[in-house]
C-alpha cells in the first residue's frame, strides 16, 4: 500500500490535500472543508475537525481565539426518513392533543 497520512478517513482527504488547500491561501475550517471535502462524510467532522484545527494552530495560520468550527447541521445522529415522516406538521397541529400513557421511565 502507498504511504498516506489521512486527516479525514471518511472522505479520504490526505495531509497532501490539506497542504494544497493551505497553499491556495485558505486558513479557515469552513474554506478548507469546501476545498478538500474533509468532514463531509458519515462522521461529519467528529473525527477530523480537531486534527485539522490543531494543524492550523501548529502552523500559526490562525489564532486559537479566532478559530471557529465549520457549520454543524442536523442530523448528527442517524434518523430514518420514515421516523421523520411521523412528525405532525408544526403549523397545522403544533402539539397533538391525545395524551400518551407511557412514561419515559419504563424504558427497559
Amino acid at each position, binding site marked *: 500500500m502507498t504511504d498516506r497520512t489521512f486527516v479525514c*478517513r471518511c*472522505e479520504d482527504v490526505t495531509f497532501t490535500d490539506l497542504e494544497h488547500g493551505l497553499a491556495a491561501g485558505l486558513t479557515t475550517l469552513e474554506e478548507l472543508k469546501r476545498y478538500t471535502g474533509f468532514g463531509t462524510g458519515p462522521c461529519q467532522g467528529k*473525527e477530523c475537525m480537531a486534527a485539522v484545527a490543531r494543524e492550523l494552530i501548529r502552523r500559526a495560520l490562525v489564532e486559537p481565539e479566532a478559530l471557529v468550527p465549520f457549520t454543524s447541521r442536523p442530523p448528527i445522529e442517524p434518523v430514518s426518513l420514515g421516523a421523520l415522516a411521523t412528525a*405532525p406538521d408544526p403549523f397545522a397541529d403544533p402539539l397533538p392533543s391525545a395524551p400518551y400513557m407511557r412514561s419515559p421511565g419504563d*424504558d427497559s
Partner: protein
Amino acid sequence: MTRERPLLVPAKPDLRRVHLRFDEALIEAREHDTLATALIAAGVLMTSRSPKYRRPRGPYCLSGDCGTCLVRVDGRPNVRSCVTPVREGMRVSSQNSYKPRSLDPTQLVDSLFPRGIDHHHLMVRPRVVNQVMQEFARNLTGYGELPAGVAERRCEYLGHELPVLIIGAGPAGRAAAAALERAGVDHVIVDRHDHAQLRANLEAELAAEFSQPPARLLSSTGVFGIYPGPRAAYPEHRDDRALIGASELDGETERLHEFRPQHLIFAVGSRDPMVPFSNDDLPGIVAARGLIRALRRTDARISGRCVVVGSGPWAAAQRDALDELRDPEAPRVELVAPEEIERAVGGERIEALVCRGRRLSCALLAIAGPPAAAHELAAQAELALRFDGAGFVIVTQDHGRCGALGGTQLWAAGDVCGWLGPAAAARDGQRVAEAVIAALDAAPEPVADARQFAAEAPPQPPPLRERAVVGDTFADEPSDQPSDQPSDQPSDEPGNEPGEPEPQP
C-alpha cells in the same frame, strides 16, 4: 469459523454464545458483544473499503462517532457496527467493497495514484474525460447501494413538553438527573447508547455512586438536531421553546421524539478524534477510550500485542487502563509518542508501527489523543464556542448557563465545557442542576410535570419491498398491486382510520 487469530478473549468463559455471519465467515460472539467487538475479537478488522483510494477500513472510535465501521445488517445498509448489539443468526456484510474482499480489483487505485487524486486538477478537462472519470469514480465508491429485503421497521412519534431535558447520560448527566430527581423536578435524560454500554462507560470510581441507571432515562436515543420553535420567525412567537429531535431505536420500532423543554442541559461529553500519522487508517487502529469501554462492556481481555499512541498524563492513564485489561499471557501494553511514529505497516489489518528506526509489531493500536468536546449540538443552537487546544468547548457563564434558544434556557455541564475527568464532571453536573432548580423556582414552569403527546394516527412510511437491483437502478418497474399494502391488514385500533365512517348507534 474464521482463520484469523483472536484479538480479544472473554474474561469469563461461561457467557452465552451467539453466532452470526460476516460475509463468508461464521463468527462466534458472546451475548454482550456489539458487532464491532465481536469482529475484533475474532480478528476480523476490515469492514469496508475507503471511498477514494479503496483502502481497507475498520472500526475506529467504537462509540458511534466515526463513519468507518458501517456495515449492512440483514440487508439494511449503513448500520454502525460499534453500537449494534449482536443477535443470533444476524447476517452481516461488508460495505463498499467487492467480494471476496481481498481480491477486490479496485484496490489498485491506491498504487496507481501514489501522489494522490487531486480532484481540482486531475482529469478536469476536456469535459468528456471529466464525465467519464466522474462516472467511473462513482461506480468505484459503491456508495448508495439500495436496501434489499429489509425487515420493516415500525415508526412512531412522541412529543414532550417538559421542564428539563438532559442530553447525555455520562457522569455529568447522571449527577444532574439525580439532583433533579431528589428535588422532584420532572425531567428526561436521553443517551444514544444502550444500557450495557452506559454501564461500561462509567469509570470505576463512579460505579458505586451511579450503580442504578437514572429513573427517567431514555437509552438508545440519539439527539440528531436542535431547532428554533417552528414559528420563531414571527415576533409574537419569539419566546416559543426550542425543539429537540431525537430518534429512539426500541427493537424493531423507531420512535421519533420531539422535546420542547424549558431548560436544556448539554452533558454530551467528549469524543476521541484521530491523530494523523502515515497510514493512520489501517484496520486495527482504534480509539483507546473506545477500546477500554468495549472491553469493559464485553468483559473481555486483549490477547494480542497492543500499543497506545499519545503523550502526557491522559495517554499514560489510557495505557495503564488497557494494561489492566490484557490477558495475563499477552505482552505488556506499550506507549509511543505521536512524534516518534514514522509510519504504520499493514494491509487488511495493522501489523507493526515503525518508530525512529525500530519496528514495534502490534495487532491493535490504541489512539489516546486529547479528548475533544462534542460541540455539534451546541453549535446548532449558535452558542459561543472556544478552541481549547483539543476541541471546541462551550463557553459558559456562572453556574453553567450558556444561552437561550427562544424560550428554552440552555446550560452545559461536564466535559463539553472542557476536559474535567469523570469525578469533576459529576460534581459539575450536580452544580448545574442546582442552578437549574433555582431558576425553575424563580420562574416556575406553568405545568410542573412532563406531558407527552402522540399523534392519534401517525402517518406511516410506505412499506419497503424487496426488489432486484442491477447496478444502481431497480431491475423492474414498481408494480402498484395493492396485495402487500398495509391498509389491507386489520387495524388493531378501530376508529383511527381517518376515512372510516363512524358506526351509527
